[in-house]
């Protein structure tokens, strides 16, 4: 009657990890939970096949898989399957197994029975990616995956090889033009991209502010909030067949006259009409603003429509360093005065109450941007790691040609730092991963949103990231906040940059094709390489040298050589690297998420549909000490480490601030200032650890 709701044994066991005996958590319970989960659930609910042939044929005939026979013989496929199953893969934690079967494994159409194990998914993805290149390559990909050296992002890992699948990429960005056609195009795009499971981010800085003129009549415009409301409802409506809620973000320039209203929309106690619950928000901060805050000078918010009328250029396309003085002295530009420092504090207050907004440092990003010859980066995405050129499309009425410009589409994947280091396969993994990402870009064509399809077709952008930094450091007995950690990151991410560039150059050479506009980039004129030909990035500390033993680390000479090759052959990808926050995928890989520090020895993870306990990877009684919580770390040191990583990443690094209830608005503001000075390109969420009631009472005693 209610049997399916009665507590499941494996969930109980996983929860029992938290019961302490002699001051130690019951970590062994996690292994019991994995075992119970397989014996009592997975095995009982997996469709059984007598032979491999029967399985493959069934999956293809029943429209689960694409027809792999078009590219491979049965014998070829069999070798890939045998190779993978011979590795005897085992999930290292309940969280890993649970997350895989819950979210990734293929199920039959009733949704009740599993048709795949982890190994099957790995083979399907490998076959899919290697279908043009043959079985050797398929085995190479399969090895990369089953060794857990590289993990494609969720949409790719979930959908590759399936006949009835969603898209392989799911990160999109676009601009919104300041007219009804532009807004309509954006809402339409949002709905379509959301329905295929995409996270979409929009730059709304071009929208005229509340009270500005429409058709010359003052006081008519509604400002940015009504558009945000529409976006929020659009994302919650179009939700990939109810499988996962749509997600979206909007970015607003901090000089936009609606910025205060924009920040207030996340406040706890605010009117329903202007409250934004599920839409993420981000702010774009130009250097000029930080300068005004530092000098404590008057700061003016600007009404963007008056700028457009006066100069014919949108406010957020302007270089504020050059134009700010001009704008505030021009009487035709409408503006209002605020205090820049108070604005920073207001941002901090909003973050304390909601975790939002994200922060995008516009000039820090563009200073390091290799494609300035093509255009500027104006905003970022839902996870603040994508940073690419964009331009607003001109959408016209029926019968008139639209002018479609660059939106942004990105497909992602992450290296597992621990396994590529242990296997001494940094170079091989980076290069193979770049091939895999390129394949995904090749087969992707988001026809329904032309600005995004155009960007993918011409720029071939990908975003290779990394996970398990803290896990690897801890298992190597290196503290996350130490000098050695900086030293390691400096060498490792330089290598990622080097080999991803080399791979991109090789692909361009093989295909005789670069991304559109290569000749205008800093890669073509060689200036991109200056930082690498002026000094080396070899490890300095003994401990880190030891970790890299037996691995060649690119030297100045290697960089010189690469520079020449790039100038000769070009590169295929306009953008290559981006450190995503990766959540679900890091669980499957039994890794710590991204390059961020862990939050707890045992992480309590709430998703929309479950609560699970996840002991940190590699945790033992010996290295316990190295698993320090992000909440107990000095955030300045964390930011410093991120700044070292950021040097080598052409796009961004998703950076989370971890604060405690007692941290005040000034503490947070100082992090923003420091991050800006360090040259960070963005800040993602701010997470807050609450003081518990016990703490309060013990303080009072």
């Amino acid at each position, binding site marked *: 009657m209610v049997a399916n709701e009665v507590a499941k044994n494996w969930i109980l066991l996983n929860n029992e990890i938290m019961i302490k005996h002699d001051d130690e958590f019951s970590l062994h319970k996690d292994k019991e939970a994995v075992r119970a989960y397989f014996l009592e659930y997975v095995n009982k609910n997996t469709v059984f096949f007598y032979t491999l042939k029967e399985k493959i044929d069934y999956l293809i005939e029943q429209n689960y898989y694409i027809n792999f026979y078009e590219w491979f013989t049965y014998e070829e496929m069999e070798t890939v399957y045998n190779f993978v199953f011979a590795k005897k893969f085992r999930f290292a934690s309940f969280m890993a197994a649970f997350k895989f079967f819950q979210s990734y494994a293929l199920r039959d159409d009733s949704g009740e029975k599993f048709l795949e194990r982890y190994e099957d998914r790995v083979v399907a993805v490998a076959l899919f990616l290697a279908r043009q290149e043959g079985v050797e390559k398929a085995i190479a990909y399969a090895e990369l995956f089953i060794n857990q050296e590289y993990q494609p992002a969720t949409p790719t890992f979930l959908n590759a090889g399936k006949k009835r699948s969603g898209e392989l990429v799911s990160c999109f960005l676009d601009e919104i033009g300041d007219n009804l056609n532009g807004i309509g195009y954006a809402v339409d795009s949002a709905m379509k991209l959301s329905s295929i499971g995409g996270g979409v981010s929009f730059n709304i800085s071009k929208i005229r502010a509340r009270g500005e003129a429409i058709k010359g009549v003052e006081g008519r415009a509604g400002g940015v909030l009504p558009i945000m409301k529409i976006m929020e409802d659009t994302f919650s409506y179009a939700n990939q067949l109810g499988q996962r809620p749509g997600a979206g973000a909007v970015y607003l320039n901090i000089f936009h006259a609606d910025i205060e209203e924009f920040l207030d929309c996340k406040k706890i106690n605010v009117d329903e009409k202007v409250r934004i619950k599920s839409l993420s928000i981000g702010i774009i901060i130009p250097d000029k603003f930080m300068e005004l805050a530092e000098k404590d000078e008057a700061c003016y918010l600007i009404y963007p429509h008056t700028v457009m009328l006066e100069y014919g250029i949108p406010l957020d396309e302007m270089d504020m360093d050059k134009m700010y003085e001009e704008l505030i002295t021009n009487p035709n530009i409408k503006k209002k005065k605020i205090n820049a420092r108070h604005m920073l504090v207001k941002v901090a207050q909003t973050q304390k*109450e909601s975790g939002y907004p994200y922060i995008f440092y516009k000039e820090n990003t563009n200073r390091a941007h290799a494609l300035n010859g093509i255009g500027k980066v104006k905003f970022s995405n839902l996870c603040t790691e994508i940073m690419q050129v964009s331009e607003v499309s001109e959408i016209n009425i029926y019968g008139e040609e639209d002018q479609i410009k660059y939106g942004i589409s990105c497909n992602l994947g992450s290296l597992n730092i621990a396994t590529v280091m242990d296997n001494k396969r940094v170079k091989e993994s980076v290069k193979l991963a770049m091939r895999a990402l390129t394949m995904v870009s090749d087969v992707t064509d988001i026809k329904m949103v032309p600005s995004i399809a155009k960007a993918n077709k011409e720029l071939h952008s990908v975003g290779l990231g990394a996970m398990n930094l803290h896990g690897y450091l801890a298992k190597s007995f290196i503290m996350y906040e130490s000098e050695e950690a900086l030293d390691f990151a400096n060498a490792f991410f330089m290598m990622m940059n080097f080999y991803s560039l080399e791979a991109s150059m090789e692909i361009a050479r093989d295909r005789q094709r670069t991304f559109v506009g290569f000749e205008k980039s800093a890669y073509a004129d060689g200036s991109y390489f200056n930082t690498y030909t002026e000094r080396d990035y070899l490890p300095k500390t003994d401990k880190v040298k030891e970790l890299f033993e037996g691995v060649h680390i690119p030297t100045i000479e290697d960089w010189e050589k690469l520079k020449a090759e790039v100038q000769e052959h070009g590169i295929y990808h306009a953008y290559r690297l981006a450190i995503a926050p990766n*959540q679900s995928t890091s669980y499957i890989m039994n890794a710590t998420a991204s390059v961020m520090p862990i939050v707890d020895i045992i992480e309590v993870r709430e998703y929309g549909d479950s609560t699970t306990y996840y002991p940190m990877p590699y945790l033992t009684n010996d290295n316990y000490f190295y698993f320090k919580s992000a909440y107990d770390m000095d955030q300045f040191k964390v930011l410093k480490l991120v700044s070292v990583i950021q040097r080598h990443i052409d796009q961004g690094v998703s950076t989370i601030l971890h604060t405690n209830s007692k941290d005040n608005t000034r503490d947070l503001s*100082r992090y923003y200032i420091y991050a800006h000075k360090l040259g960070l390109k963005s800040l993602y969420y701010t997470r807050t*650890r609450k003081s518990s009631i016990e703490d*309060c009472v013990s303080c009072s005693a």
Partner: protein
Amino acid sequence: MSKQYTAVNWNTPDNDYALMFWEQNIRQFWIDTEYIPSKDIDSWKGLSWEMKECYKKALGGLTLLDTLQSHTGMPKIIDHTESLQNKAVLSYMCMMEAIHAKSYSTIFTTVSTTNEINDIFGWVEQNKFLQFKASTIDSYYRILDKKNPTNEELFMTLAASVLLESFLFYSGFFLPLWLCGQGQMVASADIIKKIIADESIHGVFVGLMAQEVFKKIKNQEEVKQKFITLLNELYDNEMKYTEEIYTEVGLTAEVKEYVRYNGNKALMNLGFDPIFEVKQVNPIVLNGLNTETTQHDFFSKKSTNYEKSMEIVHLKDDDFKMDATVNV
């Protein structure tokens, strides 16, 4: 001489805890409509009929208790509290109780039809165990109708309030937490978790006030016995109530264990030793109760971790003088 009226002076602390509780309360401020229980509609439809009935009854019972607490309990206690700062804290808590009582309806309204909702409120009025809880606690609140209650009477009222906040709520909280730990009704559980975080400080605060009064009582042992008798009466009733609403979903034994666990917590809030034997509380529910910070996926769920920011500290020139050199 006519009565002198005093204004609450926060500059001079009345005691060492009022301000701290005030701040913690404010930090925890929330309102029901911030949360998005509509995300649970699919989950709700997937529950069995019995589970839905149980859930509605659990929430109906909770609504009654929060109504009693905000309309009678808190106002009566405020009337007989000396410290003006404590009064302020209590009146804030009183307001939150009203928000709690409404927020159950926010969940109901989202997932149930008007007829179903009316049925549940009808059930609340008819259910004898629920009515017994309410009338027993209310009878202690009503003692304070008179002008000058004795310390014993005051203690019993405060203790009854602690029992309501720290003990009687939990048979109702069990189900939302249990379901949430298994991925059901998760968005609604966000609301429930906010309520639990509030009730737990309410229980501690009123408990501290009760302990202060208890110290002034001469016949402490006798009063304590009276209190234990009350606790046992309510406990027996709670067992029957639990049987009535949880038997059909097969959770009675676990809820009873949980009720005993919280009975002990209530005793501790009053400075007494635990009296119930508790073996193993369902770890899913226990973990769900832990109101410390959890990690969440911002895209699929709203966090319960963020709090009202209290302290606005402005920036000074020095804050911009930072050394941003990195030596690697």
